[in-house]
């Protein structure tokens, strides 16, 4: 087998791992923003979710309990965001910033107070994590050239959350475009007054979307703390929530392109990790930072409208207020 093929496989495999938290957060943002609530608090919700997962799994060595705690914590934060932006009609962006800052402070201080490890949660044993699942026949398939290798190296050997994230893409598509809830969600993000006069509750719909965003951010956080790593580390989201937001814009608020955007950004991350110190013939060393900067640059270029146009849901960011007359 050629070395290049092997390198590509490894890169793709690592890109999948790196894109999963992005995908969870990106789809979370998709539900929220499609319903008209701007969510720059993805980062904070993932972070608090990761902390809750790491903390819980260290006490109850069961990854599912960790996941549950992550979802609970993240939904709690989502509800704060919802209360501020839906019930109180506050500034949704400011509310998102508050969520991020709170999560960053609280995880550090609580982590330090509870576990005395400088903000980390204790190292988790294997039983308290989501471990990698070897799919059936993965080892024997290795013998089959190309497809077998892809199956064994890339498709097999991920944790259940990875497969869950991937399954979430078609599921979200179906929910959005083929169900009543999806129809209403899209409507409330475009014209809440139309939803209101159709006899539906704008508040309930937006809350449901925000809660959904909370749940998915919880999954993303749990993935970081108890699948990808063996415990919570201070600020372990490291801007992934914002990259996910960028991916959401890149995907123009649609589920299937969201997968593509997250994978692309995950791949860039994987490449950045691999090329560190590698000298390319003719080019020399490519600074890692140049690759790391690409998702941000691409998003700005897209937002500038020079390649395609990213039109957000019409009512996004606008609190709904019945007008008086």
């Amino acid at each position: 087998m050629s070395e290049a093929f092997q390198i590509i496989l490894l890169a793709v495999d690592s890109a999948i791992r790196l894109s999963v938290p992005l995908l969870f957060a990106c789809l979370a943002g998709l539900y929220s923003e499609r319903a008209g609530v701007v969510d720059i608090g993805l980062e904070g919700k993932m972070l608090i979710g990761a902390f809750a997962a790491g903390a819980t799994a260290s006490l109850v060595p069961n990854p599912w309990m960790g996941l549950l705690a992550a979802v609970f914590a993240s939904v709690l934060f989502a509800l704060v965001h919802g209360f501020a932006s839906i019930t109180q009609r506050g500034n949704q962006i400011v509310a998102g910033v508050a969520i991020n800052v709170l999560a960053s402070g609280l995880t550090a201080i609580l982590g330090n107070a509870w576990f005395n490890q400088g903000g980390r949660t204790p190292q988790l044993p294997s039983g308290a994590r989501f471990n990698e699942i070897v799919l059936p026949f993965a080892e024997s398939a290795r013998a089959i050239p190309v497809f077998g290798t892809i199956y064994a190296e890339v498709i097999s050997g991920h944790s259940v959350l990875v497969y869950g994230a991937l399954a979430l893409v078609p599921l979200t598509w179906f929910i959005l475009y083929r169900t009543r809830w999806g129809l209403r969600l899209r409507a409330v993000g475009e014209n809440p007054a139309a939803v209101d006069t159709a006899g539906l509750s704008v508040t309930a719909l937006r809350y449901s979307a925000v809660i959904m965003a909370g749940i998915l951010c919880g999954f993303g956080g749990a993935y970081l703390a108890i699948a990808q790593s063996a415990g919570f580390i201070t600020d372990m989201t490291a801007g992934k929530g914002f990259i996910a937001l960028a991916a959401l814009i890149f995907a123009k608020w649609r589920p299937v392109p969201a997968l593509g955007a997250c994978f692309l950004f995950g791949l860039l991350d994987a490449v950045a990790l691999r090329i560190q110190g590698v000298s390319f013939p003719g080019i020399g060393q490519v600074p890692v930072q140049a690759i790391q900067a690409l998702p941000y640059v691409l998003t700005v270029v897209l937002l500038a409208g020079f390649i395609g146009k990213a039109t957000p849901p019409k009512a996004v960011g606008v609190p709904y207020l019945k007008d008086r007359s």
Partner: protein
Amino acid sequence: MTPPAIQMTGIDKRFGAVHANSAVNMTVQKGTVHGLIGENGAGKSTLMSILYGFYAADSGSIAINGTPSLIRTPADAIHSGIGMVHQHFMLVETFTVVENVMLGAEGGAFTARGAATVRSKLLELSQAYGMDVNPDAVVSDLAVGALQRVEILKALVKGADILILDEPTAVLTPTEVDNLFVLLRRLAAEGKTVIIVTHKLKEIMAVTDRVSVMRRGEMVGTVETASTSPADLAELMVGRRVVLTVEKGPARPGGVVLDVQDLSMRDARGTLRLDHVSLSVRAGEIVGIAGVSGNGQSELLEAIAGIRKPSSGRVSLNGAALDCGGRDDPRTLRAKGLRHVPEDRHRMGLVKPFEAAESAMLGCSDEERFGKGIFLDRDLVRADCAAKMAAFDVRPADPGLRTALFSGGNQQKIVLAREIERDPQLLLIGQPTRGVDIGAIEFIHKRIIALRDAGKAILLVSTELDEVLALSDRVLVMCGGKITGERLPDQTNEQDMGLLMAGVISEQPGQAA
């Protein structure tokens, strides 16, 4: 005897200090077209929003077909067989017609089956009533008339027996209005009940069986349409005989101040909004532009005022060519003596969170009289506003009060004072009395006439035909972005104007003699 379709009793509603509805009673018989009429702010829309459950009344009760009904949300209203077509359409632009209609009536957790049902119902109904609508068209691609049909179908598909239409004709051409009225009559003949909310007397006379009149939050009477007249209704509406004519002497026009030749403009979508408009306004004359709203009047004013850039054509002021929207932005045009009272003072004319004095210098903040160099002197700004308030009898005369806290009439006086007092060569004025109380209307009309008599050129746009005819020395009619005709106010009638406004007749007007 069948019970009335709707009986609203003792409806009371306050919004803060505003008593929008006070102890309102209203009865509507089944199978009739019932008009609800009143001035802006009389409480009609509030009453209908309460009937539709959009607002909850503070007190009062509603009975539908004789059964007391608790309508607290639009869902309750829909359940009671009430449908409403709002003045601003409640449609999701990115959705298809089917998706819009099925919203809230999806018929299950998944949309596939519901969509099929709604589609067939839509086709059935649109055929039955001759309403041409493509169920798969995306709403943002539809014209205004079609949007209204979608709204009506939306209500009917959801099984409405009672249909409320709020100002349905504001955006329609006369032909579309006629078609709408035929449809409404037909719905009534089939036993449905229709309520039409409007402030246009003519429409009430044309389509209703009975009409209820509101004034300042109260119901002042319900009469049979056949036994009333527009004049009587107008009196009920405002509480006294309205003087629809304005006292004014003959115009003594001087030289041409504003000259517009072949002005055309396309909007962002590429639709032609102004189509080779030519007109001129002379010193000491008021030229009025009549037309149904949305036929290019706004674009015309904004193009001349330098707010939007026309695609072609020439504009000149006192013989000097202007580059409107290009080099000549609103700022430089003001310096050249062109002033503008915008159609929508809330959107453009004022800054509501500012104190009145700051709103009163909007557009003139660069003038030397407000301070030295780059600085503004607060005392000078306030003193200037106080003087304007005194001259235009603005109440309360407090330059430090927030703009939003003034009544509509007083806000409009602030705008007018600002635009008139700098002695303009040309005044563009849109909807001078929209949302203004009767007392202020007379005051504003007198000021406009006085400005004309002082030898200024005035271009007036109003969708109130009576106002245009009463104020103008010459009237131009616009339809579809074109000028369809020119009349002298005393040599025309409503029918003639109506044909021009509808574009049925289109004469390329000759140059003003």
